[in-house]
């Protein structure tokens, strides 16, 4: 074949995903969800509806919780993207992940990465939420298996674990940030 390839149609996006400088090529109409899953290969971010109603694709964009199906891939340029793949660290699971495991807060598990990211966004801002607050905050994430009971409990347990860990240090971060949110 000697025909000339078609003119390039893809956008070059430079971003930071889970703390790592990442570049990818995408078509202008591709959502961030599609880019994460199909281009970058981060399939831990799930698609449940592709129209912003289930929260399975939750990611943090510059620290803000968004549905990645409602963000274009090109909008990630120059921003920080946090996905489910970046919640655990080499030191171990995040307290939310541990609490979900111990509290059996997942069944099929398809919504779990989204719930964990959404809950992380809450606890990062509010280390001591009430049940009502947790339910309100998580109402953008649908789970069809659990009835939410064990999820809500796991988030509150994780909050307690984090406060305990932070409180063990002098001038614990939890206390400081609790004061900051008042």
């Amino acid at each position, binding site marked *: 074949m000697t025909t000339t390839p078609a003119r390039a149609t893809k956008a070059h996006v430079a971003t930071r995903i889970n703390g790592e400088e990442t570049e990818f090529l995408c078509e202008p109409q591709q959502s961030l969800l599609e880019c994460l899953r199909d281009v970058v290969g981060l399939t831990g971010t799930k*698609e*449940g509806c592709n129209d912003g109603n289930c929260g399975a694709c939750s990611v943090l964009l510059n620290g803000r919780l968004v549905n990645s199906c409602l963000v274009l891939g090109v909008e990630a340029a120059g921003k920080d993207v946090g996905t489910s793949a970046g919640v655990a660290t080499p030191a171990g699971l995040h307290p939310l992940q541990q609490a979900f495991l111990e509290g*059996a807060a997942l069944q099929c*598990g*398809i919504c779990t990465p989204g719930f964990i990211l959404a809950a992380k966004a809450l606890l990062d801002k509010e280390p001591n939420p009430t049940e*009502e607050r947790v339910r309100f905050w998580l109402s953008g994430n649908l789970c069809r298996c*659990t*009835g939410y009971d064990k999820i*809500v409990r796991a988030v509150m347990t994780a909050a307690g674990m984090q406060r305990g860990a932070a409180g063990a240090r002098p001038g614990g971060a939890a206390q400081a940030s609790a004061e900051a949110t008042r």
Partner: protein
Amino acid sequence: MTTTKEPATGAPATESATTETYLPNQVLSHTSYNVVGTRPIRHDGVDKVTGRAIYGADIRLAGMLHGKVLRSPHSHARIKSIDTSKALALPGVKAAVTAADLSEAESRTIDLGEGSGNVRWLQDNILARHKALYKGHAVAAVAATSAHIAEQALKLIEVDYEVLPAVSTVEEAMRAGAPLLHDDLTTESLGEQTDEHSNLAKHFQFVLGDPDKAFAEADVVVERVVTTATVHQGYIEPHAATAAWNADGQVTIWCSTQGAFVVREQTAKVLQIPVSRIKVVPLEIGGGFGGKIPIYLEPLAALLSRQSARPVKLVMSRAEVFQGTGPTPGSWMRVKMGATRDGRLVAGEADIRFEAGAYPGSPVGAAAECVFAAYDVPNGRIDGYDVVVNKPKSAAYRAPGATQAAFAAEQVVDELAEKLGLDPIDFRLKNSAKEGTRRVDGPVHPRIGSVEVLEAAKAHEHYRSPLEGPHRGRGVAHGYWFNVGLESSCTINVNADGTVNLVEGSTDIGGTRASVAMQAAEVLGLGAHDVRPAVVDTDSIGFTAVTGGSRTTFATGFAAIKAAEDVIRQMKERAALIWEVEPETVVYEGTTFTSPARAGDTLSFKEVAAQLGDTGGPVTGRANVDPPGHGGAFATNIVDVEIDPETGKVQVLRFTVIQDAGKAIHPSYVEGQMQGGSAQGIGWALNEEYFLNGRGEMVNASLLDYRMPTALDLPMIDTVIVEVPNPGHPFGVRGVGEVPIVPPPAAVANAVAHALGKRPDVLPISPRVVLEMTGQIE
């Protein structure tokens, strides 16, 4: 939103709904084991909380194409022609298929792995041939180098439709002169095939005793007619399938399914190739609830792969899931029950009519089996009608049919108790089915836990707690589901370090790797995490039926127990070799082998495992089972609601589910089934329904407009696990997955009735329905 459980500042949620003396999530257990009944972390847990688990849509193969499905925009239309040539001419498009690419199967009923079905209807549901029978019915599929190109290609497919009038409900479909879906469908009536052409596929009847005489002699008779809306299973993961058709004719399918062997069986029938040509690799499944038993995409992916000679992946959109899969039937039901003055049920009569969807086969049979099965109804007549309508072919949904039936019957039971001046739980207890009670449809109940569940409900703190305030009501309802057994296979390989790998064919939707592995661990004397479970493809394990019918922990657990016993038998032989004694003398207790012939000597499981290489090689235990003794299950709900008189919104304030698990292998995941089934039942009760326009087309095919419960809509769902061991299982297991969805709509309806002094006769009990009941709107 109305809140009543507002916790004190910062108080943990667990304390907010309880009193000082009351503990939530009780397990009323009489037996204890080392592993069974404990709560270890599930084996697949870390993969799932980190996002590493690979679900149906997560697979990516070299050279893979992306497929899309063209679906009928009409709810009923004759397909005059389909032209895919323009789509195929679009750069990047590699294949396009229609029903013409499938050789038409003979119209006959065959075993499809999940009961029988007509293979031509199955084919027609995969790709419409002569008629599109519902909006969303697949008519063609394409594969292209990207999903976006495939989507563009769909727009270039030309379909010439002759639009026909549609029927959307049982009433419409059964009306004289109604438009007919199938030219060749004739009614089967009371076991006889008639030559009557109609949308009524089947009418059957069960009779016990003399119901007419019993009704004539009853002191109190209550009769109600109710209808329920079509609802969807609502799993969060859309259907996905990827296929690779090799040049040698071997087909591999990776998909999200409740049963890899059923996918293999049905796909083979649709493609008309032998099952040995197909290997199905089940990926993780993101919810199913019955809706991922049927196949939809698998044959399409295979055909597109055959045509393009490349692997092809198909993933549904949410709108396709609503319009092309599931749902569970809407229904019309009339239930009449009669009792004596002293509160004894004497007669029951039910007329149950279900939407089958586009092809026959609704779960009306199961509805008929369950409608009176929780009670001793000595005289009864049950008529069931399976009716085709212009909606997607209905699929199983968690205790299929039983929830609709309970919505009708449990309101009648509640009203009878009210008329007799009896406590609703006392009335149910007095008439509860027991071991030996004959159901109206014939079978006699074996040992069941109906009475124990009702007694636990009556004793529950929730039932005794006061419910104060206006516009509030409390309801109870009781539900039955029969569960199933069916075939399962299991192999267990012993590792040299004394751990084992367990291989099974049951896809794990909600923690069954753990519940199956724990049963093997108990038999082997190992810890839960010394058994590593794996769910494998259809080439790698014996036939295993679907993860459905609440059967997996029962039947695959049964296989795991038998395979573990086989391991122990072989390990005894190895210990005998090591000791040079007769194998029959070796005893295994706890974690230790002993033999009277070697008094004082012991070998642990681990020590024997370490010597397998020197004693004849590897040990694999295996079992193939079809255990007959699956036990039926009962659940009771207590629910408190508050109704907003201005908006008509019903808020669930408190919800308790009491259920007989036989023996809870992993109580946390049993509670999870109870809570999840309850939440689905609450959604069914209050919010969920297919809205159709005048042309029978679904207009709310999104998760915004099809309103499933969110975390904010629900309270904590308290559980009580009752354990009445099933004699048909070594640990007493009963299936737990399905029965928790049975009573909630009825319990919510009874609570609404007590709050309003009027009974809802329709599901869902949406704000509009409530405002109609209160006369605020017409």
